[in-house]
């Protein structure tokens, strides 16, 4: 579905990504983990098109998208959420989510200006679709008209997921979807992610520090450290990998056993 081959990205002398290669299988959840500064967000940025890697290729459905503009990738079906919430603060929840439908709509300028014909029909159709697939699904009914700026953090994260869902994506990149959330909110979010996978068969890439959640829900885990990919495999394989344990906890006098439990 989405495969990254030998991707390297450097800012001056700093190698943000160094020879990263993996394939996110269709309909599966791939988690990308690693200590801070490991290059996880840089990896997301080359997939969504903010940076172009100096070396390597990104294939989406056998199509090379390495140098494609970010907005064109959205039309292909690559959606993303951000680590620091990037909602449009001046708009209501509903308008934010509607923006996710942008690439699928085709109301022309004149039709829009007179709000007649296609514009009116399309808006009603989009609204019905969003109500069913996003607002109902993510349980946002009670706040759909509220301005996003005034809502609590956990809900804002969920709205951002909703906006990405409204794109009807084939690949969904989630950058730390549960960062800063309490246990209950984390469980809600994990449930939503699994529901998305089950309901639409969306391929999901996930950057997350909450190891409990990563190990519970992902099919594949990619571990980065200082831009290099140090391990890839199932959650169990990765947990047992000595290189991963070292990257997370450093070499210390603790036994490997304790370290393994700490990230489990």
């Amino acid at each position, binding site marked *: 579905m989405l495969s990254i081959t030998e991707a390297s990205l450097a800012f001056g002398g700093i190698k943000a990504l160094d020879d990263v290669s993996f394939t996110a299988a269709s309909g599966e959840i791939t988690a990308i983990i690693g200590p801070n500064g490991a290059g996880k967000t840089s990896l997301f940025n080359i997939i*969504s*098109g*903010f940076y172009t890697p100096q070396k390597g290729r990104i294939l989406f459905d056998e199509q090379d998208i390495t140098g494609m*503009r*970010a*907005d*064109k990738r*959205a*039309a292909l079906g690559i*959606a*993303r959420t*951000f680590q620091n919430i*990037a*909602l*449009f*603060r*001046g*708009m209501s929840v509903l*308008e934010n989510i*509607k*923006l*996710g*439908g*942008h*690439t699928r*709509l*085709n*109301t022309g*300028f004149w*039709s*829009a*200006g*007179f*709000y007649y014909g296609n*514009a*009116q029909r*399309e*808006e*009603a159709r989009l*609204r*019905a679709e969003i*109500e069913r697939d996003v607002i109902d699904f993510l349980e946002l009914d009670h706040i759909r008209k509220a301005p996003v700026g005034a809502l609590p953090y956990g809900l804002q994260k969920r709205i951002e997921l909703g*906006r990405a869902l409204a*794109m009807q994506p084939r690949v969904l990149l989630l950058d730390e979807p549960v960062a800063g959330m309490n246990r209950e909110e984390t469980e809600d979010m994990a449930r939503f992610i699994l529901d998305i996978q089950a309901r639409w068969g969306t391929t999901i890439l996930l950057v997350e520090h909450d190891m409990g959640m990563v190990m519970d829900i992902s099919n594949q885990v990619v571990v980065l450290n200082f831009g290099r990919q140090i391990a890839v495999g199932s959650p169990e394989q990765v947990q047992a990998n000595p290189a991963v344990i070292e990257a997370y906890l450093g070499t210390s006098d603790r036994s490997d056993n304790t370290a393994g439990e700490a990230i489990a």
Partner: protein
Amino acid sequence: MITGHFKTDYSADEGIWSIWPKRWGLVAALIALAVFPFMASNYALLLAGQIGIFIVAVVGLNVLIGYTGLMSLGHGAFFAVGAYTTVAIHHEWPLTFPLITLVISTVVAAAFGVLFGLPSLRVKGLYLAVATLSANFIILFLIEQDWLAEWTGGVRGTETPNAVFFGYELVSQQAKYFFIMPVMVIMLLFAQNLFRTRFGRALIAIRDKDYSAEILGIALFSHKLKSFAISAAYCGAAGSLWAYFFPAILPEDFGLNMSITLVVCLVAGGMGRTLGPIFGTILILLVPELLKVVAGYVTGGDATAQTWVSPVRDILFGLMIIGFLIFEPMGLVNIWDRFWRFLSRWPFAK
């Protein structure tokens, strides 16, 4: 007691005239607009026409500054493009139907908008404001050139044609008023509708968070350019109406002074709001006139006293604008919002 507004389908919920105060408010405003010229003096009609024309331009600027978040200090120039295109068309073909002239002037101004937007929109914020300044100087410089003087009248300005509808020439202020106001209302509603759909939402998204807009599939540069062209087009339409409204125009009518007045109207009224341009323009164009009346009353028509009072008038106007920015930074439309909030909650809370 009304506890909510209940709708049974999504189309109804997407409507903008959904509640009765809005619906009847619109009807009342339209009736007031239609009846006004039969009661007003020529002087009041002159002011009303001027305000109507300015509203068209400020609504356009609102698309760019208020909704797309891009600053411009050069839109007076697109106003000039519209006005001079109208004059030039009537110079070549004196009997052109006014609405056709209006449309052509609008399109030409939009084309100039694209021309100036292409280089300027590569930068943001203050840099963009400085880049757009150039439009003022370059376009007015062109208009003043001798080789264009046949159509533009050059530095000395030119007389402007009257609009002729099916043999009926619009000469009186009243007749011109009925040409300006429908155009204003239609253009206002058109702009308002744009922001209910895909295109307008994309512009607001660019204003609020551009990288996030890009990730949703919104092509930043082309949307910014379109927004720039639309705002230039609105200014061009205003320019065309201006040429029909006043007997003569001069290049310096459309200089930096006008560009800044347009921005001040928008800021005073409230950026990114439908009613902002209307409130702001009325305030900024009416207050100097009111101050004139007050000054005339204070001096009792004495000429020496008036030379002393007139700078005071400008100072008062300046102070008022500063006061506005401090006490009502969201513009007049914010006072309007507070009023409606108060009404909808009365008598339970303030």
